[in-house]
């Protein structure tokens, strides 16, 4: 497990740089982050196949839930970059640890919900951790101005690259700590409420959060778009026609 956490810490650091330092390659999108984490975490040979499926579901739900069409400056400071990694890691490793004490998982939906909840909590807490970087950046910025005025190019570059390393380190540390703390919380809490975890309840909560994800996607992709509902209807009709055609062909 130590190797798993080292790998996801490194991944978290890279994703923090992608989101905060300006790479903006979209590696830090929840779907990408969750799937990469799923590929890096190994809960044990018997769970290898699940370890690949659960991250897809966790990533897809987080992708829809965390997609925010507001401009970055208008958003609350959440760390959506590492949310996918933390969510996916807690879901997969939690499954490996808890399957023996939780009688039902509703076909894996319980672990997906655990991952989504962990990812959301990680996004909020990670936003607070990012505050540390903002404070340090303000101080470094003042030093950068002094170095620039002195014409000290080497000093300026060292300072700047130091800021880059800080973003990576904070991202890595937060991913490591966040995943560890949330996994520990899941291992401590879930067995105590195991009796109340039923297939029906898991299905209900999953359907509700899926509805929430669909609503968030609606706000992002349809609301405010000229002719948005017409295009949505066209998309639904085209997909339905395609599915029917495929089903007819298969039959």
């Amino acid at each position, binding site marked *: 497990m130590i190797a798993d956490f080292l790998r996801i810490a490194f991944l978290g650091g890279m994703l923090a740089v992608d989101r905060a330092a*300006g790479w903006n390659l*979209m590696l830090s999108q929840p779907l990408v982050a969750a799937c990469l984490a799923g590929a890096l975490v190994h809960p044990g040979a018997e769970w290898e196949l699940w370890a690949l499926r659960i991250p897809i579901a966790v990533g897809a739900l987080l992708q829809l839930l965390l997609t925010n069409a*507001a401009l970055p400056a208008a958003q609350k400071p959440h760390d959506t970059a590492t949310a996918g990694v933390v969510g996916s890691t807690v879901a997969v490793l939690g499954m490996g640890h808890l399957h023996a004490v939780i009688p039902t998982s509703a076909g894996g939906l319980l672990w997906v919900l655990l991952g989504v909840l962990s990812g959301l909590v990680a996004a*909020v807490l990670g936003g607070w951790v990012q505050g540390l970087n903002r404070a340090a950046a303000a101080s470094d910025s003042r030093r950068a101005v002094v170095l620039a005025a002195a014409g000290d190019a080497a000093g300026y570059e060292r300072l700047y690259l130091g800021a880059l390393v800080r973003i990576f380190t904070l991202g890595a540390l937060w991913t490591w700590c966040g995943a560890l703390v949330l996994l520990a919380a899941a291992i401590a809490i879930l067995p105590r409420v195991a009796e109340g975890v039923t297939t029906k309840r898991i*299905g209900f909560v999953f359907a509700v959060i899926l509805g929430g994800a669909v*609503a968030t*996607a609606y706000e992002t992709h349809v609301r405010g778009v000229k002719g948005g509902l017409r295009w949505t209807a066209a998309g639904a*009709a085209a997909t339905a026609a395609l599915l029917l055609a495929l089903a007819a062909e298969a039959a």
Partner: protein
Amino acid sequence: MTGESVPPPEEPIPAAPAPPRPIRARDLGAAGSRLLHLQALLTPDRMQGPGFAFSLVPVLRRLYPDRDRFAEAMTRHTSYVATHPLLAGYVLGAAARLEAKRAAGEPIDGARIDALKRALASPLAAIGDPFFWVVLRPLSGLAGVLGIALFGAADPSSPDVRVLLCPLLLLLTYNAVALPTRWRGVGAGFAAAESPADLLRSLRFADWRELLERGGAFLYGGLLALLAAGLHAATMAGGSGLGPVGAALLPLALGFIVARAFLRRGAAATVETALTVLVLAALVSLAL
């Protein structure tokens, strides 16, 4: 008066300016690659200014071997710059061109360089933010999610390759537009430094934005259809805890309505909305 003309006092002969060193393509390339780290020192008072100066170091070092002039240029570029990170190359290229002219002795003062940066940075932010952040990024995310259905469910006994294909689809959708834009920014800005208005007019992101917005709504419709099909299949198969289709649709509609109500009140609070929906769902499920 003797009529003899007095020779004028000798004026000091001005020092010959250092021969200009033209910027090389590799200097611009180095500056452009540094733009990848443009926001590592993002602060509210200078925004991307420190990052902009960091990116320009290879160019300024080449143009101003003299430490004082280098320091003056660096100070100029650490000042406030706020633009879209993917379009910053245009600003950087244009600023580099004016710095090169200034270094070569043309009468270009620092204020003109600042004015050019301002004239490009703000409009590029106004163009880039709605296109890349509001439309393209969510659209690529939706494409990645739809990939789950597009690539089909894997054989249960083999590894699910969608764990790689879905993220890849997302990354390709976004970067197919973002990387070429980034790539040509510095060169285009350098070439069009004298006519920033033409440069801005040449960028057609507003047209593309409308098209992609409709594409997003279209894909959202596809998502709904696939969701309905998936829900139908899951309820038919049983074991998921969702129950019959009608029973599954009820909580789905509940989640949709509650989330929309919260999002309409605070569109930027997506995380809080999702957490609230999840907690409410867990509480309501206790009654089941």
